Structures are given as C-alpha cells and as structure tokens.
C-alpha cells in the first residue's frame, strides 16, 4: 500500500472488488449505496477502503437516497459513486435524470442480474442495457461502459470517472454478475495524477459566474457548494443563470446542449475492440461476459476456416453507429449474442441498414451462452 492508502500491485480479486479499487485510484472519495446481489461486494470493499483514504462511505435507506446522496456529494466537490443491480437501478432512474439535468459528475455501477423484477438474484443477465439508455424520462444522452473482466472493472472505472468529470454527466458501468463475481489476476497499476480528469472549474469571480454559461465547449464550468459562488441549480428547465425558464426556447437550448455535449464528442467517448475483423464475412458483436464466450466461438469458427470476426463493445452508449455502418458495408452478417431477448441487436440492425444481415442469439439469463451455440449461429449466418 502506498502512503495515501492507494493499493498497487498484482492481486487475485473479483470484479466488484476491482471496481472499488478503480474508483479509489480514480479519486473517488464518497460512496453511498444499498446492498444488493451481485453488487454488494463493491459497497463492502468501499466501506473498508474509503476510511483508509480519507473518504466517506454511507449506507443509505434505499437506492433513491443513494443516487441523491452521490449527487449532493459531487456538488460538494467529491468524486462520488454508487453501485447496484437491476431492482436498485430501476429505483435510481428518476434521479439519474436529475444528475443529467444538473450536469453532475458521478459514477453508477449496475452489476446486472437476470430480471424482470427480482428475477434470478444471483445469476447473470444483460437485460438493463436499454434501460441504461432510456430509463429516465425525457430527452437526454448518457455514457455507459461495459467491462468484460475484473481487470476492466478496475480500468474502466477510472475511465468512467474521467468521462463523467470531463462531460459533467453521470457515467454508467454496465457490468454483469459473472464479471462482478469472477476472480482473476488484476493489476492495480499506479495511476499518475495527469491521467485523472477533473471537472471544468470557473475562472471568473462569483459576481461574473453563471452556472450554465459555456464558452463554446458545451460543458459549463462547475462551482461547488461552499465556495462563495451562491449559485442556484434546478431540475426544472433553466437558463444560463441556472434559473427556471419555462418555455420551449429555453428547453430547446438546454436539451440540445445536454445531448450534443455527448453526441458531438462521440469520437472521444466511444471505445471498442476488434479481433479477426479485416476479412470477416460474419461479425459477432458482443459485450461484457458474452464477449468472452463470443471470442472463443469466433476462434473456433476460424479454425474451421470460417472468416468470422469479433466486435467487442466497450461503450454501449453512445453506440458506435458509424463504425457498425462501415462494417456493414464489408461484411455479410452480424451475429449478436446477448443475455436478454434482444436489445443491442436493434442498434446493430439499425446501423447495418439492410447492408448486412443481423441475427440475434438471445439468452434469457441465469447463465452464459455456450460457445457452440454462437459457433452454430455464425455458421447459420453464412448459409
């Protein structure tokens, strides 16, 4: 352990624990949560680790309170996180929208289990992907990252904090039960301060500061509570002063900017990984734990002489539309295995735009796909 309590080195740990360590390395010093399988280990680790690094852990009375507490903490200047699974994720939706509207940096981890409702509490699912995109009411854009290993739970948690600070938006980590609970080697690398992004801060004195005035960058500088700025922020549609502005013109101005600050920065935000893609006739598009099964299946297909490739999504939102469009022009088919009855497949199909066939390989949850099943879907796609 280094002096400030940041742990470095190689460890055998599960994804939830790696997520907590990633948060601490990213500078997270506030965590509010409510226990739920399979995300509990994130909270448990944070309750032990935050006091060691001068941070604060609080177990709230529910996930609605947890979401609001991290928003409040962020406005007090802390990097803040909560973690949950489906039922709690549903409870967080209204105030995730508040985070978007107030432009509050924070990170929300959803270790997905199989739903709907209580579903299979201890088993894997990937059914919250569309909820991540559309779960709160109204028009907005969000950033969602999908780790596929404990190592990525560490690395992408740091990325999530950086993106949330940079764009002043809640960032979602859409993990799943298998990635959260599996233990693998995780390198807790040193994260140099210059790798950490901090929210834009006002450079003008309080008399000149307007909370939502941008300098053309789309992301306004953020004053914090207790610094003398005497700012007001509201979940109502507001103007540059942060004051309620109850008309369609103000709504247009604000919502366009909230969406555009993500949309127009897609190329900075979107992350994916590819394998055997250059000559691929069929592309398997997968994310999270399913991408690891898919990689195995693509490898098997290659050894049969089938020209298959893998597109592994790291950001599901914003979706890499342009890239899938380009792939569709040079491949024959997409196969989309996911642990739900079809979510990301609709995005792939939309972007393929009839240029390549799209096949869903669903799994209702409670387990992962069998590689043979994906291999068969690859063969089928080329028939």
């Amino acid at each position, binding site marked *: 352990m280094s002096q400030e309590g940041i742990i470095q080195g190689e460890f055998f740990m599960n994804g939830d624990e790696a997520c907590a360590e990633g948060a601490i390395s990213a500078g997270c010093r506030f965590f509010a949560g409510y226990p739920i399988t399979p995300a509990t280990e994130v909270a448990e680790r944070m309750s032990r680790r935050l006091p060691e690094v001068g941070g604060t852990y609080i177990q709230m009375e529910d996930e609605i309170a947890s979401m609001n507490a991290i928003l409040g903490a962020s406005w*007090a200047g802390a990097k803040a996180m909560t973690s949950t699974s489906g039922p709690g994720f549903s409870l967080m939706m209204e105030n995730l929208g508040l985070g978007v509207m107030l432009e509050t940096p924070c990170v929300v981890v959803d270790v997905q289990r199989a739903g709907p409702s209580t579903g299979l509490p201890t088993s894997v699912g990937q059914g919250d992907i569309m909820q991540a995109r559309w779960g709160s009411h109204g028009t907005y854009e969000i950033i969602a990252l999908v780790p596929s290993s404990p190592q990525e739970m560490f690395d992408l948690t740091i990325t999530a904090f950086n993106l949330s600070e940079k764009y002043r938006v809640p960032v979602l980590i859409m993990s799943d039960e298998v990635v959260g609970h599996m233990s693998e080697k995780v390198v807790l690398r040193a994260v140099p301060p210059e790798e950490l992004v901090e929210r834009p801060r006002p450079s003008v004195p309080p008399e000149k500061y307007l909370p939502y005035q941008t300098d053309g960058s789309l992301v306004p500088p953020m004053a914090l509570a207790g610094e003398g700025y005497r700012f007001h*922020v509201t*979940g109502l549609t507001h103007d540059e002063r942060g004051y*309620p502005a109850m008309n369609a013109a103000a709504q247009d101005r604000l919502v366009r900017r909230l969406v555009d600050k993500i949309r127009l920065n897609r190329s900075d935000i979107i992350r994916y990984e590819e394998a055997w893609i250059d000559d691929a006739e069929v592309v398997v598009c997968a994310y999270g734990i399913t991408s690891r099964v898919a990689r195995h299946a693509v490898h098997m297909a290659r050894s049969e002489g089938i020209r298959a490739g893998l597109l592994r999504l790291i950001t599901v939102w914003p979706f890499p539309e342009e890239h899938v469009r380009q792939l569709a022009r040079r491949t024959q088919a997409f196969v989309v295995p996911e642990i739900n009855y079809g979510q990301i497949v609709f995005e792939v199909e939309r972007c393929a735009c009839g240029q390549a066939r799209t096949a869903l390989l669903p799994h209702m949850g409670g387990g992962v796909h069998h590689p043979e099943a994906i291999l068969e879907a690859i063969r089928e796609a080329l028939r």
Partner: protein
Amino acid sequence: MTDTARAVRRSADEYLRVDRIPHIWCPGCGIGPALGCFIRAIDRAGLDTDKVAVVSGIGCTGRAAGYIRLDSFHTTHGRAIPFATGLKLAKPELKVVVFSGDGDLAAIGGNHLIHAGRRNIDMTVICVNNFNYGMTGGQMGPTTPLGARTSTSPYGNFDPPFNLPQLVAASGAAYVARWTILHVRQLEKAIVDGLTKDGFSFIEVIGPCQSSYGRMNKLGQPVDHLDSYRKRCVVKHEADLRETAIGLGGPIVVGKFVDTRRPTFGDRIDSMLHRAHDQKI
C-alpha cells in the same frame, strides 16, 4: 423604524435573488412569511453565509431554494434530504438546510426524513405544513386532517395524518419545534436554534395554502385563516407528543418539543475512524 429593523431589512435583499422577484406564491400564502423568518434567522445566527447550502424538493414550498441567494439546490420530489446528506458528508464545514413542503418531506420523502433523524445528521429541516399538496392543486396528503376537504377527498379526508413532531422525535432528531407563521419571533428563534444546534433539527411551520386548503375548507379570507391559528394555538414547550396531533378544528399545540444532545452522524464517523486507525497499528 428601529435601527435593528432597518439593518435586517437591508440584509433581506442580501439573501434574496431579487432578480427573480415577483415570486410564484399566491397572495395570502404562508410560504413567504416562513422564508422571511428563515432569512432573518440566518442573519441572526451570524453564520458564514458562503458556507450555507439550501436544498429543496418539489412543491410550492420547494421553490424557496430558487429565491435564496445562497448556494441552493432545487432537486426532485421528496429527495432534498438525501441530496443534502451527500453535501454535508462530503463537505462537513457546510451548514445544510432543507426547506420543503409537508408532502415532499413526509409523503414521498418520508423514509428519508426518519432515517436522517435516526442518523442525527447535522442539518436543519424546515417543513412548511399547509395540510395539502399546494402545487398540484390541493390534494390530500399525509398531513391532511381527518375530515378535511381537498380535491381528492371530496367527501372529507378518511386517511389519518402523521403527527410530525412525534414522528420526527421518535426517529431520533436532536431538536423539534413547531410554530405557525403568526409566531414570527418564536419561529425565527427556533430556526436560529436549529441552525446552531449540532445534529438533526426539524422545524414544522404551519402556514396557510390559501388558494386550495383554505378555500376548500371555507377558512375565509387570508386574515381569517390566520385568525384561526391565533384562536387555536396553544404554546406548550416540551409537550407530550401524543398531544401534538392536529385535527380539522381544536387546538394546535406549538412550541419547542425536543432539544437534546446526542452524537451526530459526523461524530460517529470520527469515532469509527479512530477505531479503524487503532486497529491498524
């Protein structure tokens, strides 16, 4: 005008976003007077106002955050307390005040209210109780007296209300008081007490919603509505909290009901940190 009165009047503008006046509240509404008491209390408490943050939920009362020239947050319906909890824990030097309505704090936010009391989080909650949901047009809620008429209790309310001081005291608050907007001095003093008290302080402010509750229950002109408070109020400090329930008629017990000292959540975090430190060495 006395010197003190002038000093206070000058400072009132200091604490208000005058560029947002006129406000949205109806003539005869009780929220404005409650806000006035709050502003004077902040002035009297002699706080470093750069370090005061005000958080509101949603409702007519919830609009208060928007008129106060301090760091202020207008959050979602019922969620002012957990938002304020995050602010306070992440920056303990802040003085955090929640200013919101009875529906916001006791209905949709009721769970947060009792848990903040249980934790004895160091914050001051000012709850304007107008016995109904003013903003949405006067529906019944968990403070509406039995028998009262509201837009969703057209035959008289049959859904029994909370006795808020009893509820909040039972949950563990360090300070609990109730006044009406007629009791300007006592209310102001209670808010000063709350602001300077370590721990969770809860001040219930009874005030009229003239446009809905007052009209539907035929309480007359605003002045008659206030006159009914004058007739009904009984000052009883440290009252037996079984007696502080409010009916459609009958007495309204007001006063300072609880003023105790028990460790705040911040104190408990500090002692946990000491224990954690001792275990390591």
